[in-house]
């Protein structure tokens, strides 16, 4: 009896030690050190020889060894386990704890577990709300199966580890997304003869940095390309796809001067290499001679155009399907006037979309607002529209004023 009471007290004290580690670590930046410490103490508390964490990779199909105590080889060798296979893979697939009394090649996937001569194991899923983000597991080199109480301790540790991992991943995701966005979207587009350009990118309050982009370039043929686009989704995943779509569009722009053809090729590439991704884009090509522009819309909102001295209005066009929706969707190119003194504003939906009004009203308001004698003034006027209320989506804006001949 006395021994049992002592054991319980010791267990409680040990749990408090685990909690102390995680509480302190949640506010620290060094996730690796925190997980190492946490696994070390877990090993002690459960009288185990090894303790390790595998996290689900971004594809969601494989677990990757991420942190370990007594099982460092798994991390060093970058062991990966397909979800559904082996011990940890099955825990990830079922989102349920599992106890293994006898480790053999038939029930584990990682060769390191066999090399380490582990005999019994126990593991639990690491959860973010209801979604599995990884697996925490312990092992012993001697007989003595893990109990339901051990699993409860593991669950507690897993909760703490999940919380810290999630917080860290979000920080990393945000920092990486911002860095990517900054590298791809220069604050000031490179100057092009005959055009005054200004651009702005604003992260959304709800989605943060997302998949919006703008681009402006002069092609060897003398044509000028202007792009605005929006990859659905948010965070690093959307920004990475945006980066690939943006450079693919540039590559196809080099091959053809027809916007519809460029978007058709881009669409084909997205269908094949970015399945499930959806993007809208407006692509404008201004030929070196003449007073026109060619425009194709892939599910994108109409740009706002103002002729010299005339009021601004959305261009009268119909959008074709967004990119990534349907193979070989038909696409049209519109040819519209674009003489010296005319302005064009390309923007993404975050600028005009509000929950409490029809989108046409937002576009009409934008057209009323857009005025100015330079691209920067026009850009600032458009941004002002976003400033007066909470905007949840991210916003990209590209303002263009034609100042003269593009042949410069």
């Amino acid at each position, binding site marked *: 009896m006395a021994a049992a009471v002592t054991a319980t007290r010791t267990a409680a004290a040990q749990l408090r030690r685990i909690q102390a580690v995680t509480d302190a670590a949640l506010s620290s930046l060094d996730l690796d050190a925190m997980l190492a410490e946490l696994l070390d103490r877990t090993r002690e508390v459960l009288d185990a020889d090894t303790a390790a964490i595998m996290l689900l990779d971004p594809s969601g199909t494989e677990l990757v060894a991420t942190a370990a105590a007594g099982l460092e080889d798994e991390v060093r060798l970058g062991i990966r386990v397909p979800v559904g296979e082996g011990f940890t893979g099955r825990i990830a697939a079922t989102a349920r704890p599992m106890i293994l009394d006898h480790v053999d090649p038939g029930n584990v996937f990682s060769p390191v577990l066999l090399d380490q001569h582990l005999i019994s194991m126990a593991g639990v899923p690491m959860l973010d709300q209801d979604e599995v983000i990884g697996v925490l597991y312990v092992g012993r080199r001697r007989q003595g199966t893990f109990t339901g109480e051990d699993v409860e301790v593991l669950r507690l540790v897993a909760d703490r580890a999940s919380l810290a991992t999630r917080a860290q991943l979000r920080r990393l995701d945000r920092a990486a997304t911002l860095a990517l966005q900054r590298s791809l979207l220069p604050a000031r587009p490179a100057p092009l003869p005959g055009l005054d350009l200004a651009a702005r990118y604003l992260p959304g309050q709800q989605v943060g940095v997302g998949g919006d982009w703008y681009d402006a370039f002069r092609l060897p043929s003398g044509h000028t390309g202007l792009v605005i686009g929006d990859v*659905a989704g948010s965070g690093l995943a959307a920004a990475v796809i945006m980066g690939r779509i943006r450079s693919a569009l540039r590559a196809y722009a080099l091959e053809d001067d027809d916007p519809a053809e460029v978007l058709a090729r881009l669409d084909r590439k997205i269908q094949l290499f970015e399945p499930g991704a*959806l993007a809208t884009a407006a692509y404008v090509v201004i030929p070196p001679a003449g007073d026109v522009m060619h425009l194709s819309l892939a599910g994108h909102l109409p740009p706002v155009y103002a002729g010299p001295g005339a009021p601004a209005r959305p261009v009268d066009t119909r959008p074709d399907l967004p990119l990534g929706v349907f193979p070989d969707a038909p696409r049209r190119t519109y040819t519209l006037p674009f003489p010296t003194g005319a302005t064009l504003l390309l923007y993404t939906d975050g600028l005009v979309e509000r*929950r409490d009004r029809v989108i046409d009203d937002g576009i009409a308001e934008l057209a009323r607002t857009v005025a100015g004698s330079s691209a920067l003034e026009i850009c600032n006027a458009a941004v002002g529209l976003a400033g007066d209320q909470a905007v*949840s989506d991210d916003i990209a804006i590209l303002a263009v004023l034609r100042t003269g001949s593009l042949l410069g």
Partner: protein
Amino acid sequence: MTQLSITTDHQAEATVVALAGELDLGSRTRLQAALAEAIEAGRPVVVDLSGLTFMDSTGIAVLTNARRAAGEAGVPLTVTEATGTVERILEMTGVRQFLSGEWPQR
């Protein structure tokens, strides 16, 4: 912000998924799961948007992806009854006809 409500009705000839409220990034995962389940049932799927008051580009992506997945599974999927601001969003993103079944499905 109004939460998205999803009601699935397994009728004899079709599985009707009725949406109400606002569809955005926050409700994406739930809707994806509900539509995948409806397609799995094998009967034609009708997505009824009559109760939907707002949808952003995330919603467009979920609906167009579901239509494609349905096409690959050989299950007809049509999106119907969009009104007001939601109908305008479908129109202005060029997907209204595609989702309403006026396109060949493959």
